[in-house]
């Protein structure tokens, strides 16, 4: 699966998308779900929680293992995708559609510190070797 060009990426394999209202939507990448395998459990941060960039804030668990999810930028959680509680497998089906939570960023310019699709592809390739 190709890496969407309209998203930004963290080294810990989250994607972030700037929405038209200024909020930022966060999920985990296709590569991350592929490494983890079939998802069986998602624990999202609670709405209202303030997160620092790189803060451990959610957990995804596959049949194989639990994995922490980190906030790609600083901000306040304004929404969490409750559908993932009953259908965590939607992350396997389409990791870029199955968003996890939405942030009101402290500073939207923080997104610039993340990788673009090209840089993330190169990062994934380098990790594979």
């Amino acid at each position, binding site marked *: 699966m190709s890496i969407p060009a309209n998203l930004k990426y963290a080294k810990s394999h989250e994607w972030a998308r700037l929405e038209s209202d200024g909020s930022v939507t966060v999920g985990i990448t296709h590569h991350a779900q592929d490494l983890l*395998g*079939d998802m*069986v*459990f998602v*624990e999202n941060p609670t709405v209202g929680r303030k997160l620092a960039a790189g803060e451990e804030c959610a*957990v995804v*668990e596959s*049949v*194989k*293992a*639990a994995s922490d999810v980190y906030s790609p930028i600083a901000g306040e959680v304004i929404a969490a995708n409750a559908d993932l*509680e009953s259908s965590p*497998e939607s992350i*396997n089906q389409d990791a870029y559609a199955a968003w996890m939570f939405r942030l009101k960023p402290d500073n939207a310019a923080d997104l610039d510190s993340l990788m673009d699709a090209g840089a993330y592809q190169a990062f994934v390739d380098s990790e594979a070797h």
Partner: protein
Amino acid sequence: MLKQTPLNQRHHEANAKLVDFSGWEMPIHYGSQIEEHHVVRADAGMFDVSHMLPVDLKGEGARGFLRTLVANNVDKLQSTGKALYTCMLHEGGGVVDDLIVYFLNESWFRLVVNAGCADKDMAWLETQRDRLAPGLQIIPRRDLAMIAVQGPKAADKLWQAMPGTRELAAPLKPFNAVVVGDMFVARTGYTGEDGFEIMLPAKAAPFFWQALVEAGVKPCGLGARDTLRLEAGMNLYGQDMDERSTPLESGLAWTVDLKSERDFIGKDALLRLPLDKQLVGLKLLDRGVLRNHQPVFTAAGVGEITSGTFSPTIHASIALARVPAGVNLGDTVEVEIRDKRLKAVVVKYPFVRNGKALV
């Protein structure tokens, strides 16, 4: 350099995700572990288990040797092809390995041992042989591949793939095996479903595997094998028991014969040691996933999860846990998962048998 089974090429061709399992390059899944799990519960799947080691004991005194070597009583094996699940203990009562013993005739027994224990088992077997039955031959069979075909449709699909096996293998009752030409077909498995474990010459394995694929048997990885065996309430060596635990505190009392006069290695220790721990089944009541080594808080003290997973059949998390004696079926306990204490109930296992959830 990882060791490869005779089916390694097949796994690569099928785009399996391969991992290091006890020094062997083995498929963890071929796309979706959960799909593979369901296939075995509802239809038929197969596993390459060629990393496990068949060991033939040949010569006089094989039965006498096994009487002393293993905790279960090989005198239960009286008809040709009969199989027995047992632990092999050290003097302290800890489990060296768990294995299946097949009886072929008085001068031929076959053991199948775990991949991760194979080297240590061979050394142990040879040491005990030198002491107890010097004339006995102990022959590791790395020339054999082993394929487990499992599921309610395993038998039908096996006959379709290998019509020549049907006449002799169809009448097999569970835990019985038969030699068919150069194949050894056992009605055994590690999934809680009907099925067969087939040992055959390594060279023939890729062809046989392909015939099974064409008969509609889905290749399944060791990931699904693990969730299937845990649902079936079957122990995994190295997790649910090892050299530091006895079979009695590992839910395996049913495999230990303490009634007969027979002496076996580890028996004294089993009779002497206090039985203050037990293995129980847990079902998580809260949302989350039980995992190995999570602490379990009970009214009788703290225990630990030995195998935990999400059960695809039950749609809840289940586990085996070693907890203090005094914990009872139906008790509610707490499991610590990432700083939170979640509620679980102590249940009878197996959790699933023949496709049906029992808890």
